């Protein structure tokens, strides 16, 4: 999902650390490159993820589009996933099992062990994965360096979790999601935390007290 699309999904965060060392800003490009996306087209790996430049998913070196944009940092999380269709997998496992059973009978054995079946399945998966191209997905990220807020163009929990971990690993900073609870704490101040923690919903319906 991209910020430049007509319709955008958005999860917002605040950076927890209040004193970000000023040396970090000069290291942003280098840190992004250290955790850049690594291509898996030529391998059989199931998944790969990392940073690429905002405008170009083929630019993990940030050569064409540096992340600095005015008071913002903009870059993209690219996640490639290689997934074999379950129906294709089922068919090729059946073919391999039949083949193995024929060989087994020729050798005078009566059954395949659990381990042998698992191994056949694993080999089929590897073989099919080698023939499947990974599907790329890109999720833009914008970091407001004045207000220290960050947002990513996704609302999928699995993806946002991956993003939070990679962000912390890359910059050594922690993200707090701007959910109603945390926004309320931010707005009301730490002195009123117990009021927020002990929040009890009001009953609006007829007859409610």
């Amino acid at each position: 999902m991209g910020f430049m699309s007509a319709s955008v999904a958005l999860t917002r965060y605040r950076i927890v650390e209040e004193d970000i060392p000023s040396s970090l800003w000069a290291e942003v490009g280098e840190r992004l490159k250290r955790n850049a996306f690594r291509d898996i087209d030529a391998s059989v790996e199931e998944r790969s993820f990392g940073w690429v430049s905002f405008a170009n998913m083929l630019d993990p070196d940030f050569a064409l589009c540096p992340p600095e944009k005015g008071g913002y940092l903009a870059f993209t999380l690219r996640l490639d996933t290689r997934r074999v269709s379950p129906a294709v997998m089922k068919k090729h496992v059946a073919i391999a099992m039949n083949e193995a059973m024929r060989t087994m009978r020729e050798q005078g054995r009566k059954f395949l062990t659990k381990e042998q079946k698992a191994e056949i399945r694993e080999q089929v998966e590897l073989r099919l994965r080698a023939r499947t191209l990974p599907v790329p997905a890109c999720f833009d990220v914008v970091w407001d360096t004045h207000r220290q807020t960050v947002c990513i163009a996704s609302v999928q929990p699995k993806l946002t979790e991956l993003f939070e971990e990679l962000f912390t690993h890359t910059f050594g900073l922690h993200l707090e999601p701007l959910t109603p609870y945390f926004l309320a704490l931010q707005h009301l101040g730490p002195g009123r935390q117990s009021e927020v923690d002990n929040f009890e919903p009001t009953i609006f319906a007829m007859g409610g007290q």
Partner: protein
Amino acid sequence: MDLERAQTVSLALGQEFLTWLWFASETSHGLFTARDGEVFSVTVEQKVSVQGGEGEARETAVCSGPMAELREARMGLVTGKKVNKAKLRVEKDEVSWQVLVDAASFTLQGLKTPKVSMTLEEGEDPDARILEKIYLMEKCTGYVDSVFARFLEIRFGADWPEETQRLRQWLRR
């Protein structure tokens, strides 16, 4: 910090906010004022989902349609449900935004900003349209945050019982 508690409060607070927002926008012609005095409008339209109950008894009703009156969702509020997702139209002067807000997480879906021209004029900085889009998205989140801040002031202030009565009257309409 108890993260589980934070999630429970987020859901309850977010649902109460969106329910209040529907009431507040309908009873104030959608007009809200930001802290800096800027006046803008927020209306609930086209899609509302209401939820009630707990665990396996949890029920959700979704109402949607381009010109929908969202009557079924209103009925849901009367029977004790609360808004858990609402599509908002935010307007300021001649420009407008549309966004679907999730109560529990405050994540935004289908955020449509005023159109940003994709063609670059000669000599124009290629970052200009990215910055324009960021500016427009921040304007929208800023307005929503500002309405949430207003809600918090009322919700955690002395006037909440009175506001609750007004909300109940609105439900009876």
